[in-house]
């Protein structure tokens, strides 16, 4: 089980909110209606689905051990 480092490009985020649905313990919407992180790292595999579900491609997930982009 690898640890994932998550990044949101807020300039791309459109507030669609699909990331919250996929990984509610990781993502939230802030007062501007844009996605924000509740944690910076997680082992929760749901962040991969969250990244894939984002219509704007605003979410990047990296494997913390290898530094490789996982999604």
């Amino acid at each position, binding site marked *: 089980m690898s640890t994932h480092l998550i990044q949101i490009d807020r300039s791309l*985020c*459109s*507030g*669609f*909110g*699909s990331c919250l649905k996929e990984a509610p313990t990781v993502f939230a*919407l802030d*007062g*501007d*209606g*844009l996605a924000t992180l509740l944690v910076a790292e997680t082992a929760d595999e749901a962040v*991969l*689905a969250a990244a*894939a*579900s984002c*219509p704007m*491609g605003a979410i990047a997930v990296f494997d913390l051990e290898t530094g490789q*982009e996982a999604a």
Partner: protein
Amino acid sequence: MNGVVIIGAGLAGARCAEALRAGGAEIPITLVGAEHAEPYERPALSKGFLAGTLAEDDLFLRPPGSWEDRGIDLRLGSPVEHIDLRRRTVVVSGGELAWSHLVVATGTRARRLPGVDFRNVHHLRTLDDAVALRAAVNPGTRLVVIGAGFVGAEVASTAAGLGAHVTIIEAEAAPLARVAGAEVGHLLARRWRAEGVALHLGSQIARVTPDRVEIVGGQTVPYDVLLVAIGAEPASELLAGAGGIPTDAFGRTAHDGVYACGDVASLEGRRVEHWTSASGQAAAVASTILGSPRPYADTPYFWSDQFGLRLQMVGTTTGWSHVELDGDSASFRARYVDLEGKAVAVLLANRAAEVAAARRELATAA
């Protein structure tokens, strides 16, 4: 077990392949695409890619080579010629592929104007289309766009930003009228004109020559580059008629073991061409093939960036009786309300903060 063959390597096909593999299945997965490019994102073709701020590499869904790394047999430049439902094979150039499950995700193709096929006439659906259009549109180019739908609007907006002189010709009385209605359409028309675009509304095309468009009633618009943006039609001929491939919410077609997802699928009688539907329907098909079926039941959603507006629509504008409009052409919310006062759709312009609330309201209403 012959595995899964997916026809169409766009968003729906690629997402379906990924979801199948992520679901832990060891089954062989073959992803067959007619185009030569690795699976890529189409939304940017009319925006960042056309503007030159995004390169081809930025569009790929996955880094080149990663499909093979995931054990997905990606076959590009391979249009499927025939599906044999009885023998469970598909015929591609140079061979036959056997399947136990078949996913048809062939998408759409741009509708054309009969007889209008000059060298400087463009359509926009594929990466190749976008490469050609990008090379043709320069500062000072006279670009005429036939059709004021979303593709036409986004290309017009991007081209105007590049310094082209843009004219849009539309048969309806307002842009985006079929989706947004006349009132919102007129609001958008004011915005487009303020951004320097010449807009001919309620205008039928009489004739198109290699250098001008003649409008019924006499006006003639000269052009260097013509974009025909009059919608798309489903590439469904391998399996069904012109209206798309009928499916249920799990992506199942009338044929055992055959599924459809994305733009080509007519899910319970409704075909939509949205990024989120393609992605969500692909996941539903994968879950069904993997034996733990989850239906696709999300509220429709799409976005469009044009003339300084980010438009985001939640829901479907059918069955509404009037529009509740808040704001102006710089930022607005339009609620499409039915006779009982219930919202069927919400269109937001530069109001990202209201998207989540609109989704909640419409998900509850459905």
